[in-house]
């Protein structure tokens, strides 16, 4: 399988260009800062008395969601920056000529690129999230309800935006593809909030807009799945009492992502990946 050569090249480039090192250092800085922040939560007092344990957990879970939102955002940005020039860069520089003249098909080439990028996304998302969760646990003994599901959702979010950027990379230069991918990512995020507002005001039209953006680019839907995995039961109960209005809050999810959505995302990634193969097949390097 010659795609494997390509996948290893993707990872090797990330390592050689010190991308992995930069991400590791940044992650350690963020983890250190937030770790310090978490360690301060028990020192908060209310009318001179320390907070009850339950309340500390709620604050910790909120702070963790916020931190992880930043992580997922950095992950999406990094995935776009690395994926968007992945194929177009090879074509523009001429590197692709030497490689594609070898006994390797376009599909294998795109598959290799995707696999290498997917490994990078998984390594970074899995690694960074695991370190952060471990530090939070060590500092104040808080573990979110479903850490593994959370990591899986964040990785899936990274894979979705990476696959989109790779598709764009078969046709557009890295800069253009990257900007488009990020704008779509932002639209999906806002779409999630808009859909929440629609639900809050019982407005079917607005709700549909939210649902549509969620389906066109499922990053925000996945983010909600990730948030849900971080929320303690008590918090969800409180949220559902606040009614549908809380659905507009991008740091809150009232329900788990249904299995159908997860399957939809798998299908979405497969479809976009297939389009990338077809698109690159028709391109002449």
């Amino acid at each position: 399988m010659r795609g494997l050569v390509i996948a290893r090249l993707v990872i090797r480039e990330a390592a050689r260009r010190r991308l992995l090192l930069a991400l590791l250092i940044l992650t350690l800085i963020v983890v250190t800062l937030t770790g310090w922040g978490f360690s301060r939560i028990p020192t908060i007092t209310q009318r001179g008395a320390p907070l009850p344990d339950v309340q500390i957990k709620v604050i910790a879970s909120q702070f963790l969601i916020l931190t992880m939102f930043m992580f997922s955002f950095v992950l999406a940005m990094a995935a776009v920056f690395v994926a968007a020039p992945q194929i177009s860069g090879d074509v523009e520089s001429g590197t692709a000529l030497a490689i594609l003249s070898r006994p390797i098909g376009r599909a294998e080439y795109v598959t290799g690129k995707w696999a290498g990028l997917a490994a990078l996304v998984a390594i970074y998302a899995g690694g960074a999230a695991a370190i952060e969760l471990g530090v939070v646990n060590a500092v104040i003994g808080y573990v979110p309800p479903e850490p593994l599901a959370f990591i899986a959702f964040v990785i899936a979010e990274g894979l979705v935006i990476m696959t989109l950027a790779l598709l764009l990379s078969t046709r557009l230069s890295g800069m253009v593809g990257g900007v488009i991918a990020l704008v779509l990512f932002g639209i999906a995020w806002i779409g999630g909030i808009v859909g929440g507002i629609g639900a809050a005001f019982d407005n079917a039209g607005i709700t549909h807009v939210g649902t549509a953006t969620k389906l066109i680019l499922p990053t925000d839907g996945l983010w909600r799945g990730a948030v849900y995995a971080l929320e303690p039961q008590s918090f969800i109960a409180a949220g559902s009492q606040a009614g549908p209005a809380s659905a507009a809050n991008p740091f809150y999810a009232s329900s788990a992502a249904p299995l159908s959505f997860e399957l939809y995302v798998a299908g979405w990634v497969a479809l976009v990946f297939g389009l990338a193969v077809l698109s690159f097949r028709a391109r002449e390097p």
Partner: protein
Amino acid sequence: MSDAAPAIRTEELAKRYGKITALAGLTMSIPAGDVFGFLGPNGAGKTTAVKLLLGLAKPTSGEGWVLGAPLSDRAAHRRARADVGYLPELFRYQPWLSAREVLRVHCELIGLDRARWDAEIKDALGIVGLAERADDRVGGYSKGMQQRLGLGVALLGRPALVLLDEPTSALDPVGRHDVREVIRALKARGTTVFLNSHLLTEVEQVCDRVAIVDKGRVIQVGTLDELLRADAVRVRATGIANGGYDGLRSFGELQHEGEWLVIRGIAQDRVPDLVRAIVERGGRVYAVEPRHESLEDRFLSLLEKPRP
């Protein structure tokens, strides 16, 4: 020329980019073991032809066979490419790898037996003169060194067919000489070489056969002897009667250069007949000079000639 199956064959292979015809109906056959020169000015369609042969671009029409595999059969063509080396005109290799690592990547892409990698890489590095810099990052290489690396990549695994697109564009005279030596060594080894070039000297010195291309068309194909056999003769003569020139056209293509009359494409053994014919038409002959055309003259005269 050998009588083995052709290494490359094309039939009316054509490529259009919108209104631009990059290649217009290329039909040719290159016997295995030949060094074939594809010669033409910039924009003639040389790179396009090579890209079509390598499956990097899709023909608009026509068909081609590389080592027997048709371009239209993607799987067969892909397999055949394991035995094809290519130095692109736009040569660029991963700048964050060393030359040795680039060559390893290509060994793996060809599917070369792992046990042979080190020997093959050492060989290739030695041939192109990069052995001492093999472990430096390609990003720090000069253009010429990168082109040498590209040549090394093309030679890797002793392919049956090597396509070189302007292989000396970034090289100094020593480098050009080295490339000629490499091509001669390839020929000695029985490798078929397809050499794209706009440099006549390059082609002249190493190629068995040459196709002259311009504006997407092959103007002439043949051995260098065949292309050069069309010799010319210069005659200084006065007093040829009006209309007398018409009778001389049967000897070849006439051209006036001051007092001199140039007759192109005349066979050497017809020169005495030509002189007699001039005299019969009232001409007084002062000098007759055979002129062997260089490939360059031939090339220019072919390009100038209006085509149907």
